[in-house]
């Protein structure tokens, strides 16, 4: 599973804001930290806002803050907002040649493992993993 830029930006934003749930972040602040376009990130944050994962705070010093449940929200929940995670290469390949079907089966296997990994890691678990790696 190759993640699109939007998906990665969404994961950066969710993890940054969930690490400090009371704090407000501007799109510019997160964009600067990760060296990405603030305009592009603002679009991603709006999608996250519509999904209820962040909420926008208006006015001076406004921005976005995390509004999801870090223990329940998984990486897959975020990824699904930006990727077509339900596309099945095996189903698409039903009427193709034996070689194509064989390859589609192997690629579907890789996809299933990727999905299971993303579904099993909550935002809270991911934050613990980041902290552990920072301590090393």
């Amino acid at each position, binding site marked *: 599973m190759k993640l699109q830029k939007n998906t990665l930006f969404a994961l950066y934003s969710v993890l940054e804001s969930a690490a400090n749930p009371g704090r407000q972040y501007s799109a510019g602040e997160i964009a600067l930290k990760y060296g990405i376009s603030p305009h592009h990130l603002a679009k991603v944050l709006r999608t996250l806002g519509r999904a209820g994962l962040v909420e926008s705070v208006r006015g001076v010093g406004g921005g976005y803050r995390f509004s999801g449940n870090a223990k329940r929200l998984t990486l897959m929940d975020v990824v699904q907002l930006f990727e077509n995670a339900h596309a099945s290469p095996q189903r698409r390949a039903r009427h193709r040649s034996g070689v194509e079907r064989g390859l589609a089966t192997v690629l579907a296997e890789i996809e299933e493992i990727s999905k299971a*990994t993303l579904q099993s890691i909550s935002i809270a678990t991911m934050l613990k993993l980041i902290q552990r790696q920072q301590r090393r």
Partner: protein
Amino acid sequence: MTRPQPAAAALRVRTAQAADLDAVAAIDLAITRLPKPDYWAQIHRRYGGGRRQQRFFLVAESAGRIEGFVIGEVRDWEFGSPRCGWVFAISVRPETRLAGIGSRLLEAICAGFRRQGVTKVRTLLARDNSLILSFFRSQGMMAAPFIPLELDLH
């Protein structure tokens, strides 16, 4: 009626005894919906009573009630892996989950593995079992350098 969550302090993790088997089997049945009386008798013979140092069958008890269990073993060179601890099963009553019982059980079996000189713990589970996968992930477990394979035998 919902039973109150057992307080972490009142919870005791100990080696399973023959008298615990019915409660363990009942917890498993409530979760899997598959009765396996012969399997549980065999598990107790192999792992129960603390008779073998490398094998662990532990239960979490609170106010005289079994709230969960964990089963595992230290194995040498299984699947080409140097000596490590394997967790074969871990279960907690659904109504008393999210109270740290699973964590206490896993900590206890890991402590047992450490006493055997083991520095790595592994487990294997269905990839669609998101609940237990998430639990092990939350405990810091990462993907192991193994790939499980299977074949339909006709």
